[in-house]
């Protein structure tokens, strides 16, 4: 059973990794993390154990731990798993979403469109993550949301790099607009299909060799 201190350390690490503060390859030094999080060394160690079991960080013999580098092949594999789970969440969101949540979703899409129009790739990338979070909340399916969250965390870097490809944000926005439309229309089948189409296009893009390189 995780202590509150351990959970706090886990959360802090997840946030830092997902925000790119601790990029792939970043060395996790227990003493530094104790200072960063304010919890005990053993809580930090246990938090690292949990994240290592998930594949977010890895232990290196005699050198501690580091944020794991996710290869292009793995990113594809992880996205393949995300596809059906996000589809489930989209379906449930379409069934359970409230009017207020629909309004917030539409407002968020508006913000995303503005980010793409102004070419703010960094912002757009963050907004995508938030969108999926809003869908997961509307779905009211904590087990699926938890699973997907852990998969998403490992894809942050790849998602960002994908958004840097010329023309990609516009394509992505199209896919996510279709998703928001389907959920707002409360059409579960269409919502699930929209996810499959969008993440299918992400998988296809990740599978293409690209000048900026495949591996993180």
């Amino acid at each position, binding site marked *: 059973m995780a202590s509150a201190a351990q959970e706090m350390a886990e959360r802090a690490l997840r946030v830092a990794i997902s925000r790119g503060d601790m990029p792939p390859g970043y060395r996790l030094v227990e003493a530094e993390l104790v200072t960063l999080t304010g919890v005990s060394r053993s809580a930090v160690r246990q938090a690292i154990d949990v994240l290592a079991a998930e594949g977010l960080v890895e232990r290196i013999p005699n050198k501690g731990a580091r944020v794991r580098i996710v290869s292009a092949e793995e990113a594809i594999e992880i996205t393949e*798993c995300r596809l059906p789970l996000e589809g489930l969440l989209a379906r449930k969101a379409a069934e359970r979403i409230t009017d207020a949540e629909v309004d917030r979703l539409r407002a968020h899409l508006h913000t995303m469109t503005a980010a793409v129009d102004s070419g703010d790739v960094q912002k757009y990338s963050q907004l995508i993550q938030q969108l999926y979070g809003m869908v997961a909340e509307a779905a009211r399916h904590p087990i699926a949301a938890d699973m997907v969250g852990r998969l998403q965390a490992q894809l942050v870097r790849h998602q960002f790099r994908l958004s840097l490809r010329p023309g990609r944000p516009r394509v992505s926005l199209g896919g996510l607009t279709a998703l928001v439309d389907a959920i707002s229309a409360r059409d579960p089948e269409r919502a699930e299909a929209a996810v499959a189409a969008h993440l299918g296009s992400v998988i296809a893009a990740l599978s293409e060799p690209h000048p900026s390189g495949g591996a993180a």
Partner: protein
Amino acid sequence: MAHTTGESAHLLRGAHAKRLAEQRLREEIVRGVVVPGQWLVEPELGERYGVTRNSARLALDVLITEGLVERIPNRGARVRVVSTAEAVAVLECRQVLDGLLARKAAQHATAGRTDSLRDNLRRMRRAGAEQELLEYSALVREHHRLLRELASQPRASALVEQLEGRMVRHEFQLLLRPGQARQSLAGLTRVVDAVVERAADRAESAARAHLQDVIDALLLEPAAA
């Protein structure tokens, strides 16, 4: 590592003892010999399974990671109560992931590699006919394992394995209902047929349909966990 006293000298210890205790306890939970909410006391478990208290504790640790048992601070360990709502939520996740795995298995299927799936199905048919439900249950798990091997999607496999552990009691209890085993066999046969014929779309929908049957049956059960 435990100090051998005269009293515990007859008890098994080590990795073998831990595995034995794991299997015995899992089976007792699945069969309902030990029920949700029931407290699990290490020395008692040890005595019952013929292993040391330490081996019983290690077995409990494993079942805790699987979600079958939980530790309550200052109270001890007990069999987790999994509500119907939680069971359905877990099954919904499995449903979509099994769909992915069936699709991939169909894409990778070759004549040689699907033989084991068919053989397993035959054994399931025999166990079902003989009403050997524990055996049938184990063969269903074997079916899923074979499918995962064929699919070669390690990430999805790991996710499903995590989910599987939480559901064993519910799935087994459902099999006890009249007609359930027969329906289960029919559903899994459709999955295997689609995989053998390399029909990826059909394999995915057959896998989902099979889990939908389980979810529907679960929802028909009275409210007890």
